[in-house]
């Protein structure tokens, strides 16, 4: 792999090797950015309970709600439980970590969803499905029963941006 040689050796390499090295560097940078973004998304998921607690209107609306979501950002996944007027982030890697419905998107889609004014393809979870940026799978009943509440909770990082 060209990137193993280090930058100072570029001058003795064949031009195609230099190009190969540069492409590897770009890929590494992109992978690094993806990892960074992935970490950011995970930390944003982790902030949802705190953002929720600060919103008395959401606390009131969630008093009778009960749903467990699987939130997936690329390879990373957490569960978000809404129950008894509280929101909790739970791990999702255990063999019996159940959930009602999964929202699967890549990190970039979540990142775009949380922009202060999201683009048309990132504003709404169903719109993201329609635009091929998210998959929603599982038992739709809890989602549809509490649809606006869930949309509002998932959009909380937007207001905090």
């Amino acid at each position, binding site marked *: 792999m060209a990137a193993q040689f280090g930058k100072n050796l570029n001058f003795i390499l064949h031009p195609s090797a230099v190009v190969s090295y540069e492409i590897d560097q770009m890929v590494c940078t992109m992978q690094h950015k993806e990892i960074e973004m992935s970490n950011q998304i995970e930390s944003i998921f982790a902030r949802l309970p705190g953002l929720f607690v600060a919103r008395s209107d959401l606390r009131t609306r969630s008093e009778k709600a009960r749903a467990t979501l699987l939130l997936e950002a690329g390879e990373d996944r957490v569960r978000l439980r809404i129950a008894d007027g509280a929101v909790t982030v739970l791990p999702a890697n255990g063999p019996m970590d159940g959930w009602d419905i999964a929202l699967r998107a890549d990190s970039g889609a979540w990142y775009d969803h949380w922009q202060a004014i999201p683009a*048309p393809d990132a504003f709404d979870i169903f*719109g993201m499905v329609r635009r091929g940026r998210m998959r929603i799978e599982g038992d739709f009943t809890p989602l*549809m029963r509490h649809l606006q509440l869930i949309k509002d909770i998932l959009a909380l990082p937007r207001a905090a941006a």
Partner: protein
Amino acid sequence: MTAQFDPITGRYLRLSLNGRSHRLYVEEAGQGVPLLCLHTAGADGRQYRDLMLDEAVTSRFRVIAFDMPWHGKSSPPEGWQSEEYRLSTQGYVGMILDVCAALDLDRPVVLGCSIGGRIVLQLAADHPDRFRGLIGAQGAAWQDAWYDTDWLHRPDVHGGEVCAALISGLIAPGGPEADRYETLWHYMQGGPGVFKGDLWFYRVDGDLRDTITRIDTTRCPLWLMAGEYDFSCRPEDMQATADAIPGCNAVRMERLGHFPMSENYGQFARSLIPILDQIEGSAPAAQGAVAERN
């Protein structure tokens, strides 16, 4: 007198639709060329309130909006309790023509949104000479479904809440908050199964892809409009329909979604008023009528 009233008049119109007695709630404002406004599925004529308060329009147009039966202040017909509401293409067209006749509207302009934006295509195909201009906001001959309408009416999900929550993502961000939330309130107030019944036209009976081949825009000008945040009737859905109709005008609207007239009228007016200007400019008889009244 200290009471402040909007310059909008609301009345109940008695008429027969498809052989059944109805009492339709009709609001209007302004004078001039009749402009009949058709609300979206599951909502009512309140969506056009800001249009009715725009003097740039009401100084030249008689703006009229009616609540379809089962919507807003227009109750269902007698016997509704033992039937399932379904809006059909034929019933929708008949209703519009009957309202125009009952109000004695002379070649009105029709502005419809969503299902109203779809039905103007049927009017353009079958009744072009009865209208001065047709404007379909969020209008396309067809678009693919993005959810199962069974969710709109079932005993284990609150109908008003789910209707509003589903369409909330079709409203563009950044518009006036009060208007965005009032648009949702209209949906929360719909009767059980009414939104779903309207969508029977939108999803089942009203595939107008063949119908639009009959449209002759030289007999009646046609505009289609679409907000960029609408993922139900997407701008590309509207554009595909417009491209298939020779002479059809297509307007893509920024910072708007599926409910341009109610979610952010000021932004909508930037696109709508130039269209109304064109229609008014090509209607010398109507201009004369306005001048006579003045």
